[in-house]
């Protein structure tokens, strides 16, 4: 299964990003082989519609679960329609790596 984690940088040492649509990067973690892939969020500075565009990208990537700080109403609606699991963590100080470690235990 593919899990996306919002990240403020392009490595597992980067801090978890609490924003979804305006996160700097998405880390796509594949549970089948433990690989991670970092995708830059082109829309993070978009003037509007960043959340829907991010959700659109997640759907295209075939992600089944997204871990972020919060989801805006537009993104929530869209992800709900595609049965993608949303997980909200209040963990501003963890790195992406720490969150992945939690997942693989």
């Amino acid at each position: 299964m593919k899990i996306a984690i919002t990240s403020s940088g392009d490595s597992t040492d980067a801090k978890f990003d609490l924003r979804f649509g305006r996160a700097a990067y998405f880390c796509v973690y594949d549970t089948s082989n433990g690989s991670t892939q970092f995708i830059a969020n082109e829309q993070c500075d978009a003037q509007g519609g960043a959340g829907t565009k991010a959700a659109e990208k997640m759907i295209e990537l075939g992600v089944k679960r997204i871990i972020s700080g919060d989801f805006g109403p537009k993104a929530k609606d869209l992800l709900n329609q595609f049965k993608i699991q949303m997980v909200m963590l209040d963990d501003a100080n963890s790195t992406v790596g720490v969150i992945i470690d939690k997942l693989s235990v």
Partner: protein
Amino acid sequence: MSVKIAIASGKGGTGKTTVSLNLFHHLKTQATASVQLIDCDVEEPNDALFLKGYKKQSEEAIHQMIPHIDTSQCTFCRQCVEYCEFNAIVVLPTANFAEVNKSLCHSCGACTYACPVPEAIIEEAHPIAQLSCYGNCEHTSLVEGRLNIGSPMQTLAIKELLKSHHVNADIQLLDAPPGTSCPVVATVTQADYTILVTEPSPFGLHDLKLMVALMRELQQPFGVIINKYEDNFKALDDYLAAEKIEVLGKIPFSSNYAHQYARGALLDDIPDTITTAYQAIITHLQSKLLQYA
């Protein structure tokens, strides 16, 4: 032929509403032509608060046309997504999914043009604001636009408001929103002449300068009314003289009148000094009215 006069100011609280209402009131008593007040401050309309004698005559919605994608017709070619500059459209070919986000759409029509299928995108009306008419007997004296809370489409609401058939008097006073950005442009560009209301303070002067720059760039004729006038702020007089800006009048500061404003009783027992000031302004304005009518 009707004349439209906009009342604007860069800064809020300089007295746009007070001046608009007073001009309306004094014009009504002095002029034979019909006069209407149009409240274009759709975010915070409050002219109606002060015109207690008038009854609400009618109310209707102002609409925005927002496209709807019919997924049974759509071929999911994503052409509309490509055309939409506002990120308002989501199309997922793999999932047969296509949707327009209403709060992001600017109604530019690019998607309907982009779409190769004739009936796949159809525009539907969505309410974004309320238009209300106030008056007595048959005549409508005040037309107010009121943006629905949470809607970001103030400029569109103003444009639609000014197009309404209810706006029809010989002299139309447009009470503009504060600031110098697009909602203000939408108001003053519809007007034949604009009155800038300022106050003698550093804030007032700074914002007046911005407003003057805007009016010059728009090439719209304008004049200035100094509200709450007191003698101790020379920088404003110097600026107006140096820039050769026409001063239509000065309304003296009156603390009694400020108390009256607070109560909402702007048009009862107007102090004589103030009435005199407005009568002078109207005399001054008459030449403009003739020029632009």
